[in-house]
């Protein structure tokens, strides 16, 4: 079934959280760590509550509130989030204090807020929303799982309006640990050189993106998810190719009608090779654009891609794409497709 996006909002490494549309001045990564541009959270969250919130909670709650405000929705029928790492900062604080204080006299706040479902719970608490509330933690399929859950709910009741989103943060702990795996580039290989760098490694990213979606179109609808699918651990490029062909077939889409491919190139030449190979084979002649040069690599980065694609479609200007295929993979093991259309 089609899922109509009524509003979208994202806090990302790009500026302009409160602006409409994609920022005119694109921010480029200056190092292999691409942190979000944090908005003035006091405009969105009661300062008394901010004092307890770690970064991921702030960015999740603020993006969710803006999305609800744009959709003029006070009480969503469900709140569904996806996160791979959860509230890492609070987890780090809690564990560090356990070590430093010999497992005694631990601060309760960091422990309480270290769980993966804190963002969805905080949104519900602020709204006093007792409706369905769920968080999916499935590594690089976390957002896709949240979206699938929302789709299943809307299949039963298309009139519902659901807040669905994702958030992941970089912390000093996670950056240091992930850096040991040698998955990030040297700093001189970022900026304009990231995509097509010809070297291995990528840049660490983070962000939150939230959407109000429904099974019914209304005047506010900005775009429409025609279909989405995921593939775990394809054995070779042939299986990935078949996955894409089958997806287009099942969604009754002729590739010639797709105006833009939004790909998850992240600058790692090994991981990007599959995009380049199949672009020529499957999408010859169709423009391809990348998004991880705007948000960095993280397991729920596809939520940023959906926000970006939705903005491109909703620009509604001459020449703006009417149908976008988002194709993302994370470390070659998690492939996802989202087909987005104008509505």
């Amino acid at each position, binding site marked *: 079934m089609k899922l109509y996006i009524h509003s979208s909002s994202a806090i990302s490494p790009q500026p302009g959280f409160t602006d409409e549309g994609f920022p005119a001045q694109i921010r480029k990564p200056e190092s292999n760590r691409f942190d979000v541009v944090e908005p003035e959270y006091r405009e969105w969250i009661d300062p*008394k509550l*901010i*004092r*307890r919130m770690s970064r991921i909670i702030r960015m999740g709650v603020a993006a969710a509130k803006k999305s609800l405000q744009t959709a003029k929705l006070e009480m969503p029928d469900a709140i569904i989030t996806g996160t791979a790492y959860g509230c890492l900062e609070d987890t780090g604080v809690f564990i560090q204090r356990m070590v430093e*204080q010999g497992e*005694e*006299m*631990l601060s309760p*706040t960091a422990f309480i807020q270290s769980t993966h479902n804190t963002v969805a719970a905080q949104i519900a608490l602020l709204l006093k929303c007792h409706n369905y509330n769920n968080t999916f933690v499935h590594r690089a399929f976390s957002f896709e799982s949240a979206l699938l859950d929302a789709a299943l709910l809307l299949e039963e009741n298309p009139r519902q309006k659901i807040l669905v989103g994702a958030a992941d943060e970089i912390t000093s702990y996670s950056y240091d640990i992930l850096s040991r795996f040698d998955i990030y580039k040297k700093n001189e290989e970022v900026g304009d050189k990231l995509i097509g760098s010809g070297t291995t490694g990528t840049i660490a990213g983070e962000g939150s993106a939230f959407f109000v979606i429904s099974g019914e179109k209304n005047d506010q609808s900005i775009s429409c998810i025609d279909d989405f699918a995921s593939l775990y651990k394809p054995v070779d490029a042939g299986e990935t190719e078949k996955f894409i062909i089958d997806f287009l077939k099942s969604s009754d889409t002729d590739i010639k009608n797709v105006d833009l491919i939004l790909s998850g190139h992240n600058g790692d030449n090994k991981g990007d090779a599959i995009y380049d190979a199949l672009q020529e084979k499957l999408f010859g002649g169709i423009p391809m654009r990348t998004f991880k040069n705007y948000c960095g690599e993280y397991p729920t980065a596809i939520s940023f891609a959906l926000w970006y694609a939705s903005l491109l479609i909703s620009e509604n200007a001459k020449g703006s794409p009417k149908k976008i295929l988002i194709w993302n993979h994370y470390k070659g093991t998690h492939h996802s497709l989202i087909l987005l259309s104008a509505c």
Partner: protein
Amino acid sequence: MEKLMSDLKKQIIEQLNLQDVKPEDIGDDQPLFVEGLGLDSIDALELIVLLQQHYKIKISNAEDGPKVFRSVRTMAEYITTHQPSNA
């Protein structure tokens, strides 16, 4: 007592991450919860940890909580009465 209350105000601000609140903004007899400083039940847990960490005092009887944490002065009085001599 004055020095202890001054220290407590700084420790409360730090422990509870009270942004934009300065020690001089907290009155000695100002209620800490609800209508006063606006603290809540999670803050109460943090204050219990604060007493243990800084003053080695455990509140064993939960019913003492509202009396002990009524204001900075009541906290200081409780500490003075209950602090172990070697703390």
